[in-house]
């Protein structure tokens, strides 16, 4: 089987970077007005971006809500709703002052109290938010436009937390709405973002409608990611949900829709051959695939059996089976996103070179008793299905007996939450994926949590990891953080919290009369024009 070499890694990364740069839809003379028809990646069913982590809800929220800080294309955190902020000399007290002229969609002015309540609700749900809350002594408004955050213990990435770009994003809501329990869905959709949600025209399973927020005042800066000026050119944005990819392709070709968020990769060649259409890689960070063992039950409650999973790993094989087109994937021997600041090969020797002989040896040393290993096989998501089939093959070669458990995605969600033994409805191995933004650093990366019952499904109990993550969030200088991130990676791979099987990139497709699409992890509709 093919193995990763430095040359191959660089070539893959270069291909992706080149494809991204070449395809960027340049903003031409921007037109204002018009309706943009957009085929969303999924059906928007849940409107509360704090209640759920669903990417489709996060994407919806980027239209409706604004954030205190944004993340630009270079992953730098920049003020968005915040006009200015200050940090005390000891780094323990932050003060944030809001920009002038911020208004909710109901016409009320945005106040510091709203932001405080929004942050408090977010801190109850989000992993990064919970970490920040655990280090916070006081969060309160100081006056109408200013609020302060006083730390009880040192916490380095305060601004990174407030500018967190992916689910759950700390979106700002009016205090009366943010007062809703974090376990309940909000009932009123009022934000201060550049678009207003039109509830009367919302048809779950069919369409979502947004109109321009006339009172929105963008920053006087060039847009970049979720940072910079959110200049709205469109009067209206209509999201359509089309469950059938062929229908969406035909609708795009016929000009019935303008922008298709994520076409399946096998549709891309046809789209690229159509003169009126173009493609673009909006998220150059990519997506990371996971193989997750269940640490609660044999054989993977044994470290050597888990280490066999690393020894058998061939990312190239997984990516070929799951994604198929080399232009859109790359091997990545790092638990942190390869495009991010903490990418490293520390402790990743096992991921660099497949060693089936060693895998078989580790299986023997683990005392594996031949009981079937239950691999959850999600059949209705192509790349997960492909990954499960590769895992079955590799596990068999390593000496395991494999039982593929075929399920649809929804059943998978129920199965993976079961802590029961595999012969009573539980599982041994599952596959999933995360956007690179969600595996960028230790505070957002669920795969490196060793919190046992509080960890992501699979429930690894590795106290050393938790200790290192705490040290990471308390570190304030980047070299120290980098060093701790490497230590976290070494431990995570040695204990085999999970096994990454590579990264891939999902192009977006649009008609050529659409301009101004930006690079970001979510589709953004400000700066976009339709000719």
């Amino acid at each position: 089987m093919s193995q990763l070499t430095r040359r191959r890694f660089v070539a893959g990364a270069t291909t992706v970077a080149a494809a991204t740069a070449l395809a960027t839809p340049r903003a031409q003379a921007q037109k204002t007005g018009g309706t943009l028809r957009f085929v969303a990646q999924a059906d928007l069913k849940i409107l509360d971006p704090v209640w759920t982590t669903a990417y489709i809800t996060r994407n919806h929220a980027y239209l409706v809500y604004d954030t205190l800080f944004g993340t630009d294309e270079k992953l730098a955190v920049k003020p968005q709703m915040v006009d200015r902020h200050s940090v005390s000399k000891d780094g323990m007290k932050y003060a944030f002052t809001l920009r002038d002229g911020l208004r909710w969609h109901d016409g009320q002015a945005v106040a510091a109290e709203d932001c405080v309540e929004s942050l408090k609700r977010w801190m109850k749900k989000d992993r990064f938010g919970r970490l920040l809350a655990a280090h916070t002594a006081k969060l309160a408004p100081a006056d109408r436009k200013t609020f302060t955050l006083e730390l009880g213990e040192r916490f380095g990435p305060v601004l990174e937390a407030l500018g967190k770009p992916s689910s759950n994003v700390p979106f700002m809501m009016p205090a009366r709405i943010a007062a809703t329990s974090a376990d309940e869905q909000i009932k009123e959709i009022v934000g201060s973002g550049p678009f207003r949600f039109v509830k009367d025209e919302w048809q779950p399973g069919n369409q979502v409608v947004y109109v321009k927020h006339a009172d929105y005042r963008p920053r006087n800066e060039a847009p970049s990611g979720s940072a910079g000026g959110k200049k709205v050119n469109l009067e209206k944005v209509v999201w359509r949900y089309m469950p059938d990819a062929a229908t969406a392709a035909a609708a795009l070709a016929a000009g019935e829709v303008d922008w298709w968020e994520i076409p399946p990769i096998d549709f891309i060649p046809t789209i690229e051959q159509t003169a009126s259409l173009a493609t673009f890689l909006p998220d150059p960070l990519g997506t990371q695939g996971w193989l997750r063992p269940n640490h609660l039950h044999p054989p993977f409650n044994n470290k050597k059996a888990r280490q066999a999973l690393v020894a058998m790993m061939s990312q190239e094989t997984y990516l070929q089976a799951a994604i198929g087109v080399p232009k859109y994937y790359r091997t990545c021997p790092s638990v942190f996103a390869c495009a991010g600041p903490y990418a490293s090969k520390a402790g990743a020797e096992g991921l660099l070179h497949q060693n089936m002989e060693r895998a078989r040896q580790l299986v023997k040393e683990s005392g594996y008793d031949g009981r079937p290993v239950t691999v959850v096989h999600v059949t209705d998501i192509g790349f997960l299905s492909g990954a499960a089939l590769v895992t079955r093959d590799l596990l068999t070669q390593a000496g395991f007996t494999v039982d593929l458990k075929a399920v649809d995605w929804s059943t998978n969600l129920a199965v993976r939450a079961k802590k029961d033994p595999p012969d009573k409805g539980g599982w041994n191995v599952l596959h999933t994926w995360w956007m690179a933004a969600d595996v960028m650093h230790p505070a957002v990366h669920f795969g490196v949590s060793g919190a046992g019952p509080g960890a992501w499904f699979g429930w690894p109990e590795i106290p050393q990891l938790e200790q290192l993550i705490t040290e990471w969030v308390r570190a304030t200088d980047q070299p120290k953080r980098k060093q701790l991130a490497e230590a976290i990676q070494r431990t995570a791979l040695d204990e085999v919290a999970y096994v990454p099987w590579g990264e891939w990139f999902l192009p977006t497709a649009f008609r050529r009369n659409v301009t101004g699409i930006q690079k970001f992890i979510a589709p953004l509709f400000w700066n976009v024009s339709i000719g």
Partner: protein
Amino acid sequence: MLAEILRRLMATLPVMAVVAIAVFALLHVTPGDPAVIIAGDYATTDDIARIRTRLGLDQPFTTQVAIWVGRIVRGDLGTSIFSGLPVSTLIGQRAGTTAWLTLFAMLISVGVGVPVGVVAAWRRGSWIDRAVMVFAVSGFSMPTFWLGFILVYVFAITAGWLPVQGYLPVASGAWPFLSHLILPALTLSVAYMALIARMTRASMLGVLEEDYIRTAFAKGLAPRGVLIRHALKNASLPVVTIVGIGFALLIGGAVVTESVFALPGLGRLTVDAIVRRDYPVIQGVLLVVSGVYVLINLVVDVLYVVLDPRIRY
């Protein structure tokens, strides 16, 4: 007759009750858990348990049934677990699309199937008859999704005469409304057109052998009058039955058509709800659709009496 209809309507209530409880029971024994889906990727076991409690999913099965039936009696179909919208609103948003699609598909099926079946029976053994049979077999055999894509390719993408997908309400104008329904209705109707043509032909063949038909022809009546006024009326009972069943089947068959043409109908609402285990929506839709089935059966029974006064219930 009116008393009979009222009696039959009352008789549907126990049927609906059985359907409701069966649907509820079936859903709760299928794998999947909406609380887990709602909780998302970052949820802990405690988070999931809290959501399950809030949704009432931790209650005993009988308690859940009692709560749901109590709501139904009050005319409340419940609220979607995910969108938070009332199930009645979701059904209201979708019912029009499915109703129009089904109606148009049935009009095309009957409008083409019955005349074709009559002609095939009249010209039994001729090339017309054989062509009708070939069409019938082909119509049954063509997968709906495949036919849908072919029609889209020919009439929407290549010719550009009709839209690829979507639905516009009647209020948007006659042509916009019709243009969005032609391809889906045609796609959905082909199998039923074939079924109705075959059934009409078979039924007509039996009737055309009767003495009174021979007498009518011998009296010099025009073939059209004999076929329609004498033969078809007497051959229509099995056809009416098939049309009634067809209506029910069309509602089910609309799922694929609605997906291919991205129509916001009841079929897709049901499938989406099943995928997410949105129990109140599934239960509400199935209850309403089963009610429609029962009503269609009632209408068919009434039509029997109209078409054949000898029939008594």
